[in-house]
């Protein structure tokens, strides 16, 4: 019954597209909206209102946020494919409308045959920049909810999990825990009540992957969650979104309402006996609530502090019930896996890290924005080919994994990006923020910045993290200001070790990582700043003269 309905919607959408000569897409995700793309959209709609066969719509993120607002024009009879425009202002709308069917507006044109667009492989972002995130019909026409339909009508929960296991998908929140294994664990737990939680409390400085996915293609995440619910036997889902993402929340709310009305979510969804309802919970600005046990406490209405694991949420989660908790991007991968098969997904990426990963490029880089690349691509390709390199000076290092990650120096840029390789370099994959630093950045300052972040975001429950981060920050500040001696550096390393090993949750356990990784690769920068007892700059001990033999 639902298949016919889907086909009907798809056919309607296709006829509508076929009738149009031109489709003008304006990015209305947060990046472009911040440079007034809503006014561009209004101006274009206004200008094209008497232009027959031209359809103007808002779409999700197109990736190259630094050149926003972005506009893409697709023409039915065009030989060159879509034309993209950058830095479009509302005043440019008449020119764009006039150019429809003729030569593109040269002064605004953005070349799409460059590595930034060519080298990417889009799975999670396949609909971003293509469909209107506020219309469920467009998502369905783009094969949306097909994965869920296949799962609930043709597969058993175990078969769904098998497909995920086969795909080799690993948690995209940063830890890289095998998703299939997590689903199996929750599915095996007894009990009539289980929960699925989507962690959208993205808080790493410089990371905006989850926000873009939620703003550009919210239905994708809902579909992933419903499939997960079917696989593990849960009937309730929660999306925990940080309160700083009002647009994502608004689009999610709209998407849930549309999906419920159409019967693809809610009770007896898609005409089956399976119920799945999704609720939204807003975070109140605590970074630590991205930690799963703290997130669960926060949903329960308690203070968002973590608790020791085990028991893991799979066993004792939300309201004490078995709970599956995955990141936005993990759920966004699921519909594609169900639609195209686990084997297809496993064919992308490296041996241990399958599929693609979305990264947010930020910092000192030409092409700031959102990219999706296959696992195993080298950092050099990401930074120089796709990112376009640093605008001024030399690229010095890249920071991955936010405050839990580390800095990777330029010498190691040929490393393939996967969970294990980055870990071996003392960093982590993390949720996907990449901050590129040129040679004007002081690594001590970078470490100090991240320590300050951890210090203010520590929840205050366990002593090592609560007080240790303050002392580490004070020591880093002292070093950076050229007032520290060797013994301060020794104390810093001692505290790093203590905080890493004795803290309760991931926040504290990984808080020393930025310090440890900068110490590992840029120790000389620390040593250069040290002074002796009289306050004079000290001689670098790294090149201290060999002791003379007696």
């Amino acid at each position, binding site marked *: 019954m639902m298949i016919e309905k889907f086909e009907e919607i798809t056919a309607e959408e296709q006829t509508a597209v076929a009738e149009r000569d031109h489709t003008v897409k304006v990015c209305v995700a947060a990046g472009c909206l911040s440079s007034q793309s809503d006014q561009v959209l209004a101006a274009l709609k206004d200008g094209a209102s008497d232009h027959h066969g031209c359809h103007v719509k808002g779409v999700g993120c197109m990736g190259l946020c630094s050149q926003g607002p972005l506009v893409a024009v697709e023409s039915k009879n065009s030989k060159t494919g879509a034309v993209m425009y950058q830095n479009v202002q509302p005043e440019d709308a008449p020119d764009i409308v006039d150019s429809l069917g003729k030569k593109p507006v040269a002064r605004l044109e953005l070349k799409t045959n460059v590595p930034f667009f060519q080298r990417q492989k889009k799975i999670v972002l396949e609909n971003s920049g293509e469909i209107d995130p506020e219309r469920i019909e467009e998502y369905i026409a783009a094969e949306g909810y097909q994965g869920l339909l296949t799962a609930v009508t043709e597969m058993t929960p175990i078969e769904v999990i098998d497909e995920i296991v086969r795909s080799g998908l690993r948690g995209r929140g940063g830890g890289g825990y095998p998703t299939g294994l997590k689903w199996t664990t929750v599915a095996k737990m007894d009990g009539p009540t289980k929960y699925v939680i989507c962690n959208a409390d993205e808080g790493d400085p410089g990371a905006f992957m989850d926000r873009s996915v939620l703003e550009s293609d919210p239905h994708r995440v809902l579909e992933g969650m419903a499939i997960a619910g079917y696989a593990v036997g849960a009937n309730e889902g929660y999306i925990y979104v940080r309160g700083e993402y009002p647009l994502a929340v608004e689009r999610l709310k709209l998407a849930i309402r549309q999906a419920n009305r159409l019967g693809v979510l809610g009770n007896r969804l898609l005409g089956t006996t399976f119920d799945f309802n999704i609720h939204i919970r807003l975070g109140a600005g*605590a970074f630590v609530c991205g930690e799963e046990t703290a997130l669960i406490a926060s949903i329960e209405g308690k*203070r968002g502090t973590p*608790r*020791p694991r085990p028991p893991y949420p799979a066993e004792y989660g939300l309201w004490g019930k078995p709970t599956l908790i995955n990141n936005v991007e993990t759920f966004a991968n699921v519909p594609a896996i169900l639609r195209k098969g686990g084997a297809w997904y496993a064919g992308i990426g490296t041996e241990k890290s399958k599929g693609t990963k979305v990264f947010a490029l930020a910092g000192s880089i030409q092409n700031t924005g959102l990219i999706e690349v296959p696992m195993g691509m080298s950092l050099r390709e990401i930074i120089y080919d796709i990112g376009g390199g640093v605008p001024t000076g030399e690229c010095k290092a890249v920071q991955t994994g936010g405050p839990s990650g580390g800095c990777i120096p330029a010498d190691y840029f040929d490393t393939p990006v996967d969970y294990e390789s980055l870990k071996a370099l003392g960093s982590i994959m993390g949720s996907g923020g990449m901050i590129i630093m040129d040679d004007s950045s002081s690594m001590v300052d970078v470490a100090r910045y991240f320590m300050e972040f951890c*210090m*203010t*975001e*520590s*929840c*205050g*429950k*366990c*002593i*090592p993290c*609560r*007080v*240790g*981060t*303050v*002392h580490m920050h*004070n020591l880093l500040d002292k070093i950076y200001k050229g007032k520290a001696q060797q013994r301060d550096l020794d*104390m810093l390393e*001692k*505290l790093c070790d*203590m905080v890493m*090993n*004795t*803290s*309760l949750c991931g926040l504290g356990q990984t808080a020393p990582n930025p310090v440890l990784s900068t110490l590992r690769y840029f120790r000389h920068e620390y040593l250069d700043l040290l002074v002796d007892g009289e306050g004079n700059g000290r001689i670098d001990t790294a090149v201290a003269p060999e002791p003379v033999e007696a």
Partner: protein
Amino acid sequence: MKRQTQARIITLKIDGVDVAAREHETILELAQENNIFIPTLCHLDGLSEYGGCRICVVEVKGSNRLFPACMTYATEGMEVITNSERLRLYRYSILDMLFTERNHVCSVCVSNGHCELQYLAAKLGMTRVEVPYLNPNVPVDASHAHFIMDHNRCILCQRCVRVCGEIEGAFTKGVMGRGVNTRIIHDLNGAWGDSATCTSCGKCVNVCPTGALVEKGKSAGEMVKRRDWLPYLRLMQED
């Protein structure tokens, strides 16, 4: 914690001593049963476990991670080490953190000589702190008729918060703020004396490990706390 009537019995080693245990017994409970000392601060018999002070962390053979003894359950064949050099250094360092976080001045403290923090420092052989004192400017709330809350001595173990909610059921005490700015508050951060929910039962004062919660009218070293009643209350609740 509810005991199972028909628990499986397992055996494990703590510091080389063979120990028999029920499932759902924590390493801390077993160590105490067998007279093996593990330092604790936030743990208190009769209250729920909190797992925040981290001073009870122990090593388990075969794992590089450290486990809080108060919240880690015994498993078959486990080999626990409670007193290695590594643990000693970490515990010492955690005490360093506590002594430097707020203003712990034992000589003028009413709990001098009856303070768990002071006791642990002496027991672990602490002679000095290795990091600078933070010397924060924190207030004292003496608005209550019988008790004083001195934030200078507070280690945020949250025993008072737990006893107030779990045993007295008043939920007067709460927590505010984040990180080093975390504070114990009364109701919605009002003065303790103005609290409409506080029953003045004094349980929080008696569970407090330091001189943060004390009775009025005590001079230095006079504040002795009584808490032998706690496990009984807990048992009564379970029945």
